[in-house]
C-alpha cells in the first residue's frame, strides 16, 4: 500500500512558518515555528478549527520547561479552560 503524504510549507511576512503533513488518511500534522506566543496561538487555533478534531499535541520542550509543566498538564489545563489553540511557548 502506498503511503504518499502531502507536505506543505507556509510563511508569513512576520517570519512565522507553518509546516503541514497530510497523511494518506487525511489526518494532518501541523507544526508552527518562529512565531511569537500569541501569533502561534492564533495560527494554530485557526488552522485546527478549520481542519477537524485534535488528536494530540506536542509542545516545544523549551516552552514546557519555561511553564514548568508536562504535556499532559498543559492538555488538562487547556481542556479545563475550554480553550482551543495551544500554549505555543
Amino acid at each position: 500500500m502506498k503511503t504518499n503524504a502531502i507536505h506543505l510549507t507556509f510563511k508569513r511576512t512576520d517570519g512565522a512558518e507553518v509546516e503541514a503533513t497530510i497523511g494518506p488518511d487525511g489526518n494532518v500534522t501541523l507544526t508552527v515555528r518562529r512565531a511569537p506566543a500569541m501569533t502561534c496561538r492564533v495560527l494554530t487555533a485557526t488552522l485546527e478549527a478549520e481542519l477537524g478534531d485534535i488528536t494530540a499535541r506536542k509542545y516545544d520542550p523549551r516552552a514546557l520547561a519555561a511553564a514548568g509543566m508536562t504535556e499532559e498538564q498543559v492538555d488538562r489545563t487547556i481542556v479545563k479552560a475550554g480553550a482551543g489553540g495551544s500554549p505555543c511557548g
Partner: protein
Amino acid sequence: MSHQTMVKTKITNADDAADALRDLYPGAAIDVAPRGGLVAKLYGTQTASGAVAVARAVGVYREDVALTRQADGSIGLAVDSGTKERWTRDHDGRTLAGMLAQRSAYHTLRRAAQAAGLALSYDSTVDPTVAGRV
C-alpha cells in the same frame, strides 16, 4: 518556539470537498450545491439524499460519487461498496475515503492559511523532486 498538533480531519466545507472530488476525478462532471443548499439531481444508481456535491460517472471512472452532510455537520461519502472496492484496487490500496479526506484537507489548509496571511512556499504535490508526491 514551535508547536505541533495532530488533527483528525473532519470534512465540513463543501467547496473544499468538491475541489477534492475534482482532484480525484479530473474531467468528471461535478455538480456542487449552492452554499447551504443541496444538489437537486443525483445520478445513476446513487440514492443518497441531501447531497452537497456529486461527481458524475464518466468514461473510465465508471462510478457516481456523492458527498452528503452528516448529522454532526461533517461531509461524508455516499458511494456503493462495489465502487469503493474497485477504487481501492485501481489505486494501489488507497481508499476513496482516505484520498478524499487528504485532498479536502489540502484545499482547506491552503484556503485557511491564505486567510491567515500565510503564503504557500512549498507544495510537494507540485514539486517533482519530492518522493511523497501525490
